[in-house]
């Protein structure tokens, strides 16, 4: 099967694969996503969707530093599998590393659509995109 391979930067180690859920808006993990992994921020372009077992693709993080612990918890409970960012900032980086959620950034996320199959290699900083169609 054909895939596109993009080289990014390794932020949090580990290898994982899964279906992409793409948001084009910055996400705050304190308030925007609940404990079960449902997006509760009404302003979000993925409002109401579940991030469960998805590779969450979004440009960057924002908001309170307590967000790091929320991401940790989502990872620990197996809800959030992997993260792809355009530009990772410290709050999301910290949470992903604590929660052992593989994370690669410096990726052109416009090349990824919701539903694409993603193979995320956080050790090498590589994202493979298998288009849905």
């Amino acid at each position, binding site marked *: 099967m054909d895939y596109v391979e993009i080289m990014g*930067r*390794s*932020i*949090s*180690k580990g290898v994982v694969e899964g279906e992409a859920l793409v948001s084009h808006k910055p996400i705050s993990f304190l308030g925007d996503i609940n404990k079960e992994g449902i997006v509760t921020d009404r302003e979000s372009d993925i409002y109401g969707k579940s991030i469960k077992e998805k590779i969450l693709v979004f440009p960057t993080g924002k908001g309170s*530093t*307590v967000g*790091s*612990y*929320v991401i*940790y*918890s989502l990872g*620990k409970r197996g809800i959030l599998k992997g993260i792809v960012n355009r530009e*990772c*900032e*410290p*709050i999301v*980086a*910290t949470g992903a*590393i*604590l929660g*052992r959620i593989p994370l690669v950034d410096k990726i052109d996320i416009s090349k990824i659509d919701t539903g694409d199959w993603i193979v995320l290699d956080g050790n090498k900083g590589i994202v493979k995109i298998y288009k849905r169609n």
Partner: protein
Amino acid sequence: MYLTKEEEKIYNGEYGEVLEMAMNLLVSLGDIYGAERLIDISSAQVSGVSYKTIGEEGLNFLRDISKDDVKVSVPTTLNPAGMDLSRYEELNFPRNFVKKQLDIIKCFKKMGVEIGCTCTPYLSGNIPIYGDHIAWAESSAVSYANSVIGARTNREGGPSALASALIGKTPLYGYHLDENRMPSYTVEVEAELEDISDYGILGSLVGRIVKDEVPYFVFKNGISGDKYSKLKALGASLAASGSVALYHVEGITPECRMNKIDIDITERITVTKEDLEEEYHRLNTTEEKPDLICIGCPHCSLEEIKEVVDFIVKNNIRRTGFKCDLWVCTSIHIKVIADRMGYTEVIERAGGKVVCDTCMVVAPIEEMGYKNIATNSGKAATYLPNFCGSNVIYGSTSEVLKKGL
């Protein structure tokens, strides 16, 4: 980022999962901020201690990271917790909160962190030398260490400070480098400042303008009296209303005295008496009487405790004198000296409490029924309305104490 052979081994998990995670965190943060390598630190100071701020997720993380018996590798102290760790019953802290808070403390203790929960570690033994690289998280302590002591730290988060404590290193970027320690604003203070609370007002005003940049203060009338407590109040307030991690004061702070500061390129701000009065009114959000008077954000020095004692003695206040609760917050270290000086006895005979390990911002005061808080702290005045849903009565130490009579 360049890693030594030994650092690479830690990164690759040869020394266990906890250190691997800590190293991954430092390396990734270093990459994000453009650090070339790691640098040794002489001490760490870790935030994210109160159950109120880190919640169940934070507690679970600490349980996780402390379970393998990995210890910190440099002297490490803790930020304030959500309660007095000895007198929580007497002070009516909610039972469930107490249990969770004690669990958090147990995790830190297991890792070899000193359980002297304070935002003023520099008053109680965690004292860097000029030029030392450190990894501190409490914003007011970061400000004091960078500015007044001339040590070097970025504003760390709780987890990154803990990772640094475990590894004994921090990524070399930001305020660790000379070129990032130059000021971009000159602040000429024309107004004459007296009380500690005036420095809080000044910090609140200037922090809002300079945001995360470095201000250079010129006090036209100098700084009189207890310089340390005043600079402590100024830095805390600058870090709360803005996110200032470093400031300089002409003729006073070490980098200025050593002529390391280049002030040619800076923008200028002048602060007059009127500016401070306006800011004073901004900080006051209610005309009502306080339910709680709180002195000691950041934690009181011995001199600040003495100011409260002098007020009580001068006004001959007895047990029923204060119509509301009074907390004088400090570290357990300073409290021991206050006990020996007889200060604690004076305050407690007048109905107040000398409270250790916590403060009005990170304690669950809203759950305890406190709504109107009187404070002499610019930092507390900034955080209380949003963080605790409180109304603020701001003023000098004697002004806020008078409000409780």
